[in-house]
């Protein structure tokens, strides 16, 4: 699975996700990626989110929209909301994976609860940050 979130100069955010699913899947299995609110979500009032991982758990936990809801209704920061969903709620479900998220103020979060996640970010005039493993 691949995905991206972005904030433009006008203050608008967007999210996109794309996947080939799981190796050896059958029965036309569909994961969280194309389900708005599960694997992909964007709302200028809160954040944009793109997820990756074991889709069945992300669907049950409504991960992307849950991050947005925690910001909208509970007033959490992007980082706090992502931490709560990926490293607490999702872990209880047994769901492995992570997400990238961005808020209209420019905050970026890239949490994951697996051994690694291919990830990158670039903000303003900063150098691009690229990482794979947990300790980077």
């Amino acid at each position, binding site marked *: *699975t*691949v995905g*991206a*979130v*972005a*904030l*433009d*100069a*006008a*203050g*608008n*955010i*967007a*999210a*996109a*996700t*794309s*996947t*080939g*699913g*799981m*190796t*050896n*899947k*059958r029965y036309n299995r569909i994961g969280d*990626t*194309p*389900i*708005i609110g599960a*694997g*992909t*979500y*964007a709302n*200028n009032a809160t*954040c*944009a989110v*793109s997820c*990756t*991982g074991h889709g069945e758990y992300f669907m049950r936990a409504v991960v992307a929209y849950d991050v947005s809801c925690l910001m909208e209704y509970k007033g959490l920061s992007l980082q706090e909301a992502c931490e709560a969903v990926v490293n607490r709620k999702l872990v209880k479900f047994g769901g*492995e994976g*992570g997400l*990238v998220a961005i808020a209209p103020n*420019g905050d*970026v979060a*890239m949490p*994951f609860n*697996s*051994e*690694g*996640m*291919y990830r*990158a*970010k*670039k*903000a*303003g005039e900063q150098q*691009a940050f*690229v990482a*794979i*493993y947990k300790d980077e």
Partner: protein
Amino acid sequence: MKNIAIALHGGAGTIEKKSLSPEQDKAFRAALKQAVEEGHQVLARGGNALDAVELAVTLLEDSPLFNAGKGAVFTKEGKHEMDAAIMCGRTLEAGAVAGVRNIKNPIQLCRSIMEHSDHVMLSGYGAEEFALNHGLDFAPESYFFNKFRYEQWSEVRDTNIYQLDHTVHTDEKFG
């Protein structure tokens, strides 16, 4: 420069340092860097967030390293079946596809569905018909073939096991 930013991922899973060779590590980082830099350039030129995420994901779909587009994994039938979605934070408009085959860049189809249909999600043959009607690029099965993905699939194709793209762990749901 104004407050612009982009972040992206290429999948998560059991990715440990020992699981990648130095060459593989370098290739993954180069592909991620290219996608994030080109997406950022769109924003730096005053482009919108939708264009930036669409381009970044298109580049990752075009890379055989990641499980999307060209690098998509094999289904039980030995085919490639892809899902994708895009959403605009300003308008809350969205476009999504599920179970499409032979679409070169599913994320571009999502953008087209978002902008040129009254629907949010299309699936299977209907989504492919929409793609044909809107001039999206198709690709033959051979375009999606990848030796590494084929070997991954060969190990489990005669079982009920299915696997996450970057994960060694297997789950025998129907065992």
